[in-house]
């Protein structure tokens, strides 16, 4: 009985980068990257540290602007003067949770909804749904972030990203800093949340197991650009039996692929 994600007409191209280059000072971090993301699919970006994964993610919601090329969201080029409105359709969660230390867990989750003009009952209904999805005890809502465990903080961060029922979800290594058991739990919760509320997901990770488990497609990046993009089934077939950790190296080394 859940509402369909309200911002997503079908047959929309959620996210496309066309010939995007980005530099910081004199160093080009991304060079001529063109890539498109399929609607309601989960795509992981993997690659060595410093290959531009996070930069690419920040280009997707306008935190960075491309020096060359263009980024299109929901079938049209980003209007950088209307970012706040646009970002209400995009969820964002980061490593180390990025929770506001001066706000309680409840306020962290609901602040965007309040600013977007949602009324109290609507916010509370959505909050209850989210607590169910991420298995968070409502007794924790009045705590400040520093009074929560790492896993609890991450659930709050994920709930905050999902609050406005985004049609695009950008995740920047959100599960990197939590213990393996809790990580597995949250993986399951994310998957079940996406079954109920489909969204296009871009996940930056350096954990290949996580990428294989959560994604439909995996994008391998090397210095400055996209090396290759594979459906997960194809990868599993091609590299069956290989340790996931080694798969990245194999793919990047194999230039014929």
């Amino acid at each position, binding site marked *: 009985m859940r509402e369909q994600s309200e911002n997503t007409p079908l047959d929309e191209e959620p996210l496309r980068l066309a010939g995007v280059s980005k530099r910081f000072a004199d160093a080009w971090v991304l060079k001529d990257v063109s890539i498109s993301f399929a609607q309601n699919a989960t795509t992981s970006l993997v690659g060595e540290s410093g290959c531009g994964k996070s930069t690419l993610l*920040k280009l997707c*919601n306008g*935190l960075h602007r491309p020096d060359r090329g263009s980024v299109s969201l929901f079938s049209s080029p980003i209007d950088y003067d209307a*970012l*706040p*409105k*646009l*970002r*209400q359709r*995009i969820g*964002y969660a*980061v490593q*180390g949770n*990025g929770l*506001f*230390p*001066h706000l309680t867990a409840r306020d962290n989750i609901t*602040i*965007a909804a309040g*600013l*977007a003009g949602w009324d109290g009952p609507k916010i509370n209904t959505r909050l209850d749904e989210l607590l169910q999805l991420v298995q968070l005890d409502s007794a924790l809502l009045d705590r*400040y972030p*520093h009074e929560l465990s790492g896993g609890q903080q991450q659930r709050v961060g994920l709930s*905050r990203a999902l609050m*406005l029922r985004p049609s695009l979800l*950008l995740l920047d290594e959100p599960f990197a800093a939590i213990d393996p058991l809790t990580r597995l739990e949250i993986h399951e919760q994310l998957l079940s949340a996406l079954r109920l509320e489909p969204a296009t997901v871009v996940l930056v990770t350096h954990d290949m197991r996580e990428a294989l488990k959560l994604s439909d497609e995996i994008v391998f990046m090397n210095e400055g650009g996209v090396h290759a993009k594979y459906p997960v089934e194809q990868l599993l077939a091609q590299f069956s039996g290989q340790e996931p950790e080694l798969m990245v190296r194999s793919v990047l080394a194999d230039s014929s692929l």
Partner: protein
Amino acid sequence: MLCGLFGVLLAATGAHGAESIVVGSKIFVESHILGEIAAQRLESVGLKVERKLGLGGTLISYEALKVGELDLYPEYTGTLIRAVFEETDLSQQALQDKLQAEGLVLQENLGFNNSYAIAVPSVLAKSRGLNTVSDLIAHPDLRFGFTHEFMNRADGWPALRSLYNLPQEAVGIEHALAYRAMASGDLEGTDAYTTDGELELYDLVLLQDDRELFPRYDAAFLSRLDLPPTAIDALEPLAGLINEQVMQTLNRKVASEGRSPAEVARAFLLERGLAPKQEEGGAASGMSALLAEVGHHTLTHLRLTFAAVSLGCVLALPLSMALSRNERWASAIQYFAGLVQTVPALALLALMIPLFGLGERTAIAALFLYSLLPIVRNTIAGLAGVDPILKDVAASLGMTTRQQLLKVELPLALPTIMAGIKTAAVISIGTATLAAFVGAGGLGEPILTGISLSDNQLILQGAIPAAVLALLTEFAFSRLTQGMVPAHLRPRR
């Protein structure tokens, strides 16, 4: 923008009555007494008088007279020639011409020449055989402390030192403190006036200016050209009435007998038949009067500080917030606020007089300028110190720039910003003691008067409440911060 802010203050503090005559004086005892003599003489012929006594130095008094904030104050010919007009010598007529061009006139000489002289303890003079300034050349070990004015004016220490080839180094020190330092043996020489009442009290002798560096410092009331004829007539009998001996006596009565300049002036005028006998004014005495006076000074002090820091917040907070995102502008405004901080307080006060006159407005303007730096610096630092990840998240949640500032950046920077305002307030409470130099009152009035009259009790009447105010301000701000910032975000002490 500044002008707009001060417009509000102008209306709030109001102007003094148009028909009263404003009598000023500088901060030292003799100037105080002469100011009182003029004021009481004018009152004795039925004129209404407003007193602005104890202003800080020639610069402030002269500037205030020029812009019409004062109608007259006691001045010395040598000071006008050397310090104001920066000439070496001027005839009486040439001096009057120069003054007239400024809309001022020097009334008749009062009858004494209060020149500068170097004073040394008489014991020392005897043991080292010191009679003239030239004798000092052979004693390079002597430690001198001079008033800041004497240290800096062209006809003071620099001229004395080069004319006589003196080998000694000197430090700057307040006049009354110099006498105390001589008494305790920390100093062996200071600049003195030839009419100083303290000379006898501290057993000091004056060294003869054998090469005649110092010009004549004939005392007279310097007034505006538009001083009413009735006032000029009233002051006329004072001409030639006060010679060096008389002035020394009057000075000693204040400096060493602990009498107030007002009392001494009244006794002098009565004795010369220049004031009607009247009942010893109904001035309340005792504890309640003291408390009332301390309370009055404290309230004035609070008002000055509060107005200045509030204005500082009104200007500096929005400005720093608006400019904090632009590094170049942020450093420009910090540079400006820092520059203001380097202007000495007295100079800043003197600069403000042409704009805001004598009194609270000038004091508030100067304190306001001093309050800018801590507020600007802490606001910019507080906002810049917010975790960039949190700024990214705030933007990513769809917040507008304004919402990011109000909902995330300001709350996180709040402890730092509050600390800046607290620093501004505490500094302001200290600096506001200088407000008395421009006639703005406050706790500086008993402190500065107490210093110039060597009256410890008077100094404490100002110093204790000022210290209490500073402590209360600290306390109030820590309570305020407790109310506004969750415990885990407060700075740990």
